C-alpha cells in the first residue's frame, strides 16, 4: 500500500519588515484628510506652523501640511541654536524651497543662553530640554501671530521610548505622525519625495554636536521598531527572543517603554470628587 504524502506547516516566522510596511499613498491620503478635518473643520484653522529641524519627521509633516492646506498656508520655522549643525539649516531650507512654503528663521541662542547664564553647570540633558521648550515658545507664539495651528512632528517610536522633551516636542495640538514608527516615516518620506539626503542621514535630535538618536538609544530604529511591534501586541520577551531578536535589545526596548508611560499622559491630578476631570467627567478632545 502506498504511503500518504505528509505536508508539514513551516516553522512560524515573523517577517517584521513586512509587518511594518505601509501603503504610503493610502496613508498620505488618510493623513491629508486628517489634517483638513482636524484643523479646518473641527478647529477652524487654515494655516499651519511646523518647526523644521532638517530631519525627516518635520520634513514629512511639512510635506503633508502643504498637500492638505496648500503651500501658501504653511510656515516652516527654523530655530537654530549656536551649536546646531549647519547641515540642519540647509536641509530645512531644501524642504522650504521644494514645497514653496513660507519660512522664518529664529535664532534661539540669545533666549536659551539668557536663561542658562544663571545655570552655567547645566548638563547636556538640561540644556537640550531648555532648547526644546524654547522652540515650543517660539512655535506657539508665531502660531498666534499667524492665526495658525502648530503641527506636531513626533513619531511613534520616539513617543514609545519617551525620547522627547515632555511638554515641548509633544505639545502641538495635532500630530499626523504619532502612530507611525520611525521606519514607517522613512517609507512615507520616500513616497512624498522628501530629499533623499534627509531621509538617509542618521536621525539626530541635534541638541549636542555629533549626537545621533541610535547612539543615544543604543539600538537601531529598524530593530527597535520590530521589537516594539511585538511588545505592543502583548508578546512576552521569551516569545520575541524565540523569533531571533537579541535578549538584551528586547529588554532595552521594554525598559524604555515601561519607564516612560508618564510622558504619554497629562499631569497626574489628585482625585477628590466624583466629577474628577478625565476620570469621571469624560468628554472627548473634539467635543
Amino acid at each position, binding site marked *: 500500500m502506498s504511503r500518504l504524502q505528509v505536508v508539514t506547516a513551516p516553522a512560524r516566522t515573523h517577517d517584521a519588515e513586512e*509587518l511594518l*510596511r*505601509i*501603503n504610503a499613498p*493610502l*496613508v498620505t*491620503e*488618510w493623513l491629508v*484628510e*486628517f489634517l483638513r*478635518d*482636524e484643523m479646518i*473643520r*473641527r478647529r477652524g484653522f487654515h494655516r499651519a506652523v511646523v518647526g523644521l529641524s532638517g530631519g525627516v519627521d518635520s520634513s514629512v509633516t511639512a510635506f503633508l501640511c502643504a498637500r492638505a492646506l496648500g503651500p501658501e498656508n504653511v510656515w516652516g520655522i527654523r530655530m537654530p541654536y549656536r551649536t546646531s549643525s549647519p547641515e540642519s539649516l540647509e536641509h530645512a531650507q531644501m524642504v522650504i524651497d521644494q514645497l514653496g512654503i513660507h519660512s522664518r528663521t529664529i535664532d534661539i541662542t540669545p533666549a536659551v543662553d539668557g536663561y542658562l547664564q544663571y545655570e552655567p553647570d547645566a548638563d547636556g540633558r538640561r540644556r537640550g530640554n531648555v532648547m526644546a521648550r524654547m522652540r515650543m515658545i517660539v512655535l506657539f507664539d508665531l502660531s498666534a501671530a499667524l492665526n495658525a495651528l502648530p503641527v506636531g512632528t513626533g513619531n511613534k517610536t520616539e513617543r514609545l521610548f519617551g525620547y522627547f522633551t515632555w511638554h515641548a516636542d509633544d505639545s502641538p495640538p*495635532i500630530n499626523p505622525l504619532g502612530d507611525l514608527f520611525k521606519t514607517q516615516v522613512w517609507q512615507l518620506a520616500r513616497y512624498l519625495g522628501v530629499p533623499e539626503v534627509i531621509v538617509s542621514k542618521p536621525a539626530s535630535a541635534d541638541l549636542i554636536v555629533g549626537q545621533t538618536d541610535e547612539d543615544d538609544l543604543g539600538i537601531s530604529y529598524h530593530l527597535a521598531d520590530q521589537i516594539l511591534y511585538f511588545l505592543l501586541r502583548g508578546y512576552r520577551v521569551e516569545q520575541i527572543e524565540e523569533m531571533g531578536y537579541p535578549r538584551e535589545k528586547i529588554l532595552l526596548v521594554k525598559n524604555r517603554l515601561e519607564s516612560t508611560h508618564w510622558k504619554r499622559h497629562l499631569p497626574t491630578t489628585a482625585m477628590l470628587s466624583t466629577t474628577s476631570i478625565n476620570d469621571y*467627567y*469624560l*468628554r*472627548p*478632545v*473634539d*467635543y
Partner: protein
Amino acid sequence: MKIRVAVVQFKPRKGDVAHNLDRVAETLRQIVEENLPADVVVFPETILSGYFLEGGVRDAARTREQILQELSCRYQPFARAEPLDVVLGFYELWHGKYYNSALYLTLEQEPARCRILHTHRKFFLPTYGVFQEKRFVARGRTIEVFQTRFGAATVLICEDMWHSITGAIAALKGAEVFYVIAASPGRGFRGENVGNVMKWQTLLCNMAEEHGVWVVNASLVGFEGGKGFVGQSTIVNPFGQVVVSAPLMQEAIATATIDTEEIAIARANAPLLADLEAGLADLLIEMQEIAEEQHTRDRQ
C-alpha cells in the same frame, strides 16, 4: 419587489444634534429635488452626533419621538407625494437609559402620517481597544424583524454585524433586507485598502451570501479626535456580490435598486438558510447545553 435604496455618508458636527438633523434634511431635500432613485435612505450609526462622545452621550441623547418630530418638521417644506423611508443612527434616551440606537421611519407629506416603524438598540456593544460603549450606553436585548411596505427587514448596528449569529437570527425570523449602519474608525494601512474596510467588505458579502439576503450598509465618515471613520458604504446582493460602494472617507450618496426576487434565486442555488432551519432544533439543544455548562462552571 424592487426597492430603490440610497446610502448616505456625511461628517456630522460633533454633539450638535440640531445641525446634524439639518444635514439629514438637506440630504433628503437633494434626493427629492434631484429625483434620485430612493425609497429608503440609510444614514450611518450616530449620524446625529458623531460616535465618540464619552459622557457627552447624556447631552446628545434624544427620544425617538423627538427625532421623528424634528425630522418630519424639517421634511415638510419639500415633502414628495410618495412616502420616503429613512434609517438613521442616534444616541437614544429610552426608559431612563441611554442606547446606541437606529430608527426606521416613514416620512410623508402629512406630518401626522410620519411614523416610526422600528427601533433597534445595539445588541453587541464594543468595549475594547478604542471602543468604550458599555461605559456610556446600555445594551439592547433583541434582534427584531419588522414589516416595511417592501417586505421584512432588520436593522443591525456595527458590531451586531460582526457576530454571524445575529444575522442568522434575523434571517430565520424572515428578514430579506438587512440595513446595517456602522461607525468604523480606520486601522491597518499595509494592504491595498484600510484594514477594517477590507474586513467589513468580507463581513457584508459573507452575511449576504450565507443567508441569501440583501445587505445595505451605511458607514460614517470624518475624523473625531484623530480617529477617522472610513465610509465606503456598500450594498451587497444575495449572492454576496458588491453592487455599489461609496468612496473611502469622502461624503457621498450611493444608490442602487435592489430586487427581492433575487433572494429566491440565491437561496435555491445555496440553500444554507433552509439547512439552518432544518437543523435549528438540534442547534438550540446544543446552545442550551453550552449555556448550562457555562453557568455551572462559573458557579464552581
